[in-house]
C-alpha cells in the first residue's frame, strides 16, 4: 500500500446510516428490561433470568482497577434497545430487508447477499440491537448446524440456551458482564452437533449506528463432541463525538475432542486525533474447554475503540485440553487498550500458549494484563507466554502486567516479555531500498505481528494487515 493511499484512509467506516429507529425508552430500569424482553417475544424464564441479573447489578460496583480511566458513564442516559424500524416485524428473506441497511453492509463489504457471495462465509449481521440477516441457512441446516440470532435461539432451542447460557460467564460475574446479562439485545448463537466439521467460516458483523446507544450483544457458541468451528467477528461504528458503550459477553463451550477457533477484528471508531469520541469496548469473553482433548483458540486484532478493556479467557477443565491466545493490540493518538487473557488450568496435561503483540504510538497507552493459573490438580500442565511491545515515540506507554501462579510441581510456566522501539537498522535497510519511512514502518510492524496474523483465516488476514498499516498512519516522524 502506498503512503498516499494510507494518508487518506482515516476511518473509512465512520459514516452513519440515516435510518428510522425504534428505540426503548432511555435509561436503565426494570421497565427497560421488560420492554426488551417483550419486544423480543421472550419466554418467561428468560425475563426472570434478566431480572435476576438486574437485581444483582444493583449491588455491584463498576471496577476501577484497570489502567485506562474514563469519565463516569451515565447509565440512565443511554438507550438500551435500538432497532431499524423496518425490523420490527422480522423480514423473512433478504428481499424484505430495508435496502438502506443492505446498502450499509455493502459499504462495509459484508457479503449479505448470498447470490453475490464470493467468499463463502456465512454471516450474521447485527445492526445496533437486532440481528439483520443470517446467510447460508440452508446449507448449514443440512448438517444440523444451528447458526442464528440468539433471540431466535431462545425461542427455537430453549433447552440448549437454558443449559449453556451463563454457564461460563455467570450473571454475577462482574459489573459489565452482569449489565450485559440484564439488557443484552442480540447476538449470535452457534451449535455444532457431534462429529461435525463446520464446512465454512461463520461470521458476525456488528455495527453500532444510532447515537446514544449502548450495544450489548451476547454470543453463545457450543461445539459438541468431536466437532470443529471457526468463527469470525468484525465490528465498526460511525464517527461521533460522544463516547458509546459496547459491553458484550461471549461464551464458548467445547465438549470432548471439540475445537473452537474464534477470531476478532475489532475496528470500532477510535475517536478523533484529540481523543474526542470513540467506543468504550468493555467486553467479557470466556471459553470453557469442558471436555477431554478440547481446544479453544482466541485470535484478536484490536485496532479500534477509544478504550479497549477485554480479556478473552480459557478455562481448561478437561484433561489434555488446549487454550491459545493470539493478540495484536494497536493504539494510536489517545487510544487506550488494557487487554490480555486468563488461562486457568484445572485438568491434567492442559496446555496453553499466549502470544501478545502490543504497539503503541501517539499518546496512547497499551497494557497487557494476563493471568496464568495452574491449579494443584492440573498435573503436567504447560504454559508459554510471550508478550512483546513496540513503542513509537516517547509520549506513549507500553505496560505488561502478568500474574503467574503455579501450585504444582509437575507443571511448567514460562513467560517472557520485551519492550523496545523499531530497530533503526531495519528502518535504514528498508529506506535504503527505496521504501519511505511510513512504508518501512508498516512493513516492519507487519513483520512484528506476523505470528498472530498467521493465525487469522484468509479473508481476515488480508484485511487485518491493511488495518495494521492504517492504524499507525501519521505516527511516524
Amino acid at each position, binding site marked *: 500500500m502506498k503512503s498516499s493511499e494510507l494518508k487518506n484512509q482515516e476511518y473509512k467506516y465512520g459514516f452513519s446510516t440515516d435510518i428510522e429507529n425504534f428505540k426503548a425508552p432511555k435509561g436503565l430500569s426494570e421497565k427497560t428490561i421488560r420492554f426488551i424482553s417483550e419486544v423480543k417475544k421472550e419466554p418467561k424464564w428468560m425475563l426472570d433470568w434478566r431480572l435476576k441479573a438486574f437485581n444483582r447489578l444493583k449491588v455491584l460496583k463498576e471496577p476501577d482497577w484497570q489502567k485506562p480511566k474514563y469519565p463516569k458513564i451515565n447509565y440512565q442516559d443511554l438507550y438500551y434497545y435500538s432497532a431499524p424500524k423496518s425490523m420490527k416485524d422480522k423480514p423473512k428473506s433478504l428481499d424484505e430487508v430495508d435496502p438502506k441497511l443492505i446498502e450499509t453492509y455493502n459499504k462495509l463489504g459484508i457479503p449479505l447477499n448470498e447470490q453475490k457471495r464470493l467468499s463463502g462465509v456465512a454471516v450474521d449481521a447485527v445492526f445496533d440491537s437486532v440481528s439483520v440477516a443470517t446467510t447460508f441457512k440452508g446449507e448449514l441446516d443440512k448438517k444440523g448446524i444451528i447458526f442464528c440470532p440468539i433471540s431466535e435461539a431462545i425461542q427455537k432451542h430453549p433447552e440448549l440456551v437454558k443449559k449453556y447460557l451463563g454457564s461460563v460467564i455467570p450473571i454475577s460475574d462482574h459489573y459489565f458482564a452482569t449489565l450485559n446479562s440484564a439488557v443484552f439485545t442480540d447476538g449470535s448463537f452457534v451449535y455444532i452437533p457431534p462429529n461435525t466439521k463446520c464446512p465454512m467460516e461463520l461470521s458476525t458483523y456488528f455495527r453500532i449506528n444510532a447515537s446514544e446507544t449502548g450495544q450489548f450483544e451476547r454470543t453463545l457458541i457450543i461445539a459438541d463432541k468431536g466437532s470443529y468451528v471457526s468463527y469470525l467477528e468484525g465490528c465498526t461504528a460511525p464517527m461521533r463525538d460522544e463516547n458509546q458503550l459496547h459491553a458484550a459477553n461471549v461464551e464458548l463451550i467445547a465438549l470432548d475432542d471439540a475445537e473452537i477457533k474464534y477470531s476478532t477484528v475489532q475496528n470500532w471508531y477510535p475517536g478523533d486525533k484529540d481523543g474526542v469520541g470513540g467506543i468504550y469496548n468493555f467486553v467479557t469473553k470466556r471459553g470453557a474447554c469442558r471436555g477431554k482433548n478440547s481446544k479453544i483458540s482466541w485470535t484478536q486484532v484490536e485496532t479500534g475503540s477509544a478504550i479497549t478493556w477485554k480479556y478473552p479467557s480459557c478455562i481448561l477443565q478437561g484433561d489434555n485440553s488446549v487454550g491459545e491466545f493470539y493478540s495484536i493490540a494497536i493504539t494510536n493518538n489517545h487510544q487506550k487498550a488494557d487487554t490480555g487473557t486468563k488461562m486457568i488450568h484445572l485438568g491434567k496435561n492442559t496446555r496453553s500458549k499466549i502470544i501478545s503483540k502490543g504497539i503503541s504510538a501517539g499518546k496512547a497507552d497499551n497494557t497487557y494484563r494476563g493471568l496464568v493459573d495452574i491449579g*494443584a490438580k492440573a498435573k503436567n500442565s504447560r504454559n508459554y507466554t510471550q508478550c512483546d511491545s513496540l513503542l513509537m515515540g516517547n509520549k506513549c506507554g507500553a505496560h505488561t502486567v502478568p500474574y503467574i501462579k503455579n501450585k504444582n510441581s509437575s507443571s511448567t510456566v*514460562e513467560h517472557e516479555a520485551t519492550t523496545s*522501539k523499531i530497530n533503526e537498522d531495519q528502518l535504514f535497510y528498508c529506506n535504503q531500498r527505496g521504501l519511505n519511512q511510513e512504508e518501512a514502518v508498516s512493513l516492519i510492524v507487519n513483520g512484528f505481528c506476523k505470528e498472530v496474523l498467521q493465525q487469522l483465516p484468509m479473508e481476515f488476514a488480508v484485511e487485518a494487515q491493511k488495518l495494521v498499516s492504517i492504524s499507525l498512519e501519521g505516527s511516524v516522524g
Partner: protein
Amino acid sequence: MDQLFNIDFKKISSHSKKEVLERKKFFELFLKAGLPNKKDENWKFSDLHTIICQNFKQIQNYDDFKFDKKIEFIKDFDHNHIIIVNGVFKSFDLSFEEKDKVKIKNLNSLESSSNLSSNNLHNLNKALSIGGFNLEVEKDYKCKKPIIIYNYFASNLDNKIINNSNKIKLNQNSELILIEYNFGAKSKFFNNNFEKINLNNGSSLKNFVIQKTKCNGYFYKNISGTQDYNSSYQNFILSSGLKFNKIEINMDLEKENSNCYILSGLGLGNEEHQEIKTQINHLAPNCKSYQKIKNVLANDSNGVYQGKIFVKDIAQKTDAYQLSKALILDDLAEFNAKPELEIYADDVKCSHGSTSGSIDEDAIHYLMTRGIELSNAKKLLINGFLNEIFENLPEQYIKTFSEKIIKEQIDGI
C-alpha cells in the same frame, strides 16, 4: 484488629508529650485500615492479615531490653560490626576504619514526617518505632572492611512486635559493604522494619541479607532509596529459613548512569513464605537495573516475586532486566509471580522473564545413569540452580561464607 493488638504506649520511650500524641494518632490510623490483606494489590499473594491472625492471638509491644548473652562473631573474615538486639541498636565497633570517616548514631525514630503513607505498615512503624541506627559514610571514603549488622533476637519475644527503622547515607564517591546477619533463638514475633537509603554521586553500596538459623519470626522490611549520578546499589537477598518474610524495595534512579542490582537465591522449606517485591523507578536516562530472583520451593512453602520496572518518558537508553525462576519440588509448594513493566520511553531495552517448574527429569536421569543416587542428584541440580546467584556475589570471602550456609540449607531440604 483492636483485640489483636495490645499496645502499651508507656513502654515506648518518647521524648515529649507531643510525640506520644503523634504516635497515638498514627496507631489509630493504622487500626482504621488494619493489616494489609489480599484485596490490596501489593499483598495479593501474601495475605498478611490472615497470616498474622492465624498465628497470633495477641500481639504486644516490648520493653525488656536487658541483654547479657555473648554474641558469637563470625571468624571467617575481618569486619566491623553493629550489634542490634531485639531490634534495638546496642553498640558498634569500627576498628578497621579511619577515625570519623564512618559515623553511626542512634536513631530515635523516623523523622516524624506528618505526611500520610499509603502503606499502613508505615503508620504502624511510626506509631511504635523503638528507633534504630543512622549510618553515614564520609565523602571519598572507601570502607576497608565490611560492616556486619548482628541482628539478634532473644528467646523471650513470643507474641511481641518490634518496629524499628534505620537510615543509611553514602556521601560522594564513598563505598561500603553492609552485611545483615540475622540469627537468634526461636521465638515467634513480628518485625516491621523501614530502611531509608541515600546514595550520593558516585557512591556504591553492596548490601547482603543473610539468615543464619531457621527462625519462627515474621518479618517485613521496607527499603526505599534514592540514587544520584553514577551511584550503584546492589542487594543480595539470601534470607532462607523464615516463617514469613517480605522484603519490599523501592529504588528511585534519579540521576543519569546510576544502577541497581537485586539478586536473590532462596531455598524455602516447611511452612515458609517469602516474598520479594521490588519497584525500580527509572527517572533519568542511561540507567541500568538488573534483577534475578531464584527460588527453590520444598514441602508446602510459598514463594512470591512481584517486580515492577517503571520507566519515565525522559529516561531514554534505559536498560532494565527482570528474571524470576522457581524450582517447585513438592506438590504443596506454590510460586506466584507478577513481573510488571510500565514504560513511557521508547528508546529502551526492557525485558522480563519468569519460569516455574520442576527439576528437569532428563538431567536427573543423566546423573543417575552415572551412578549418582536420586537424592544426591537432586541436591546437585538444586545447587546448580542456585549457583547462578552465588557465582555473581562479589568478594570471594562472602561467596565462600554464604556458600557454606546455603549448603546447610540444601542438605536440609
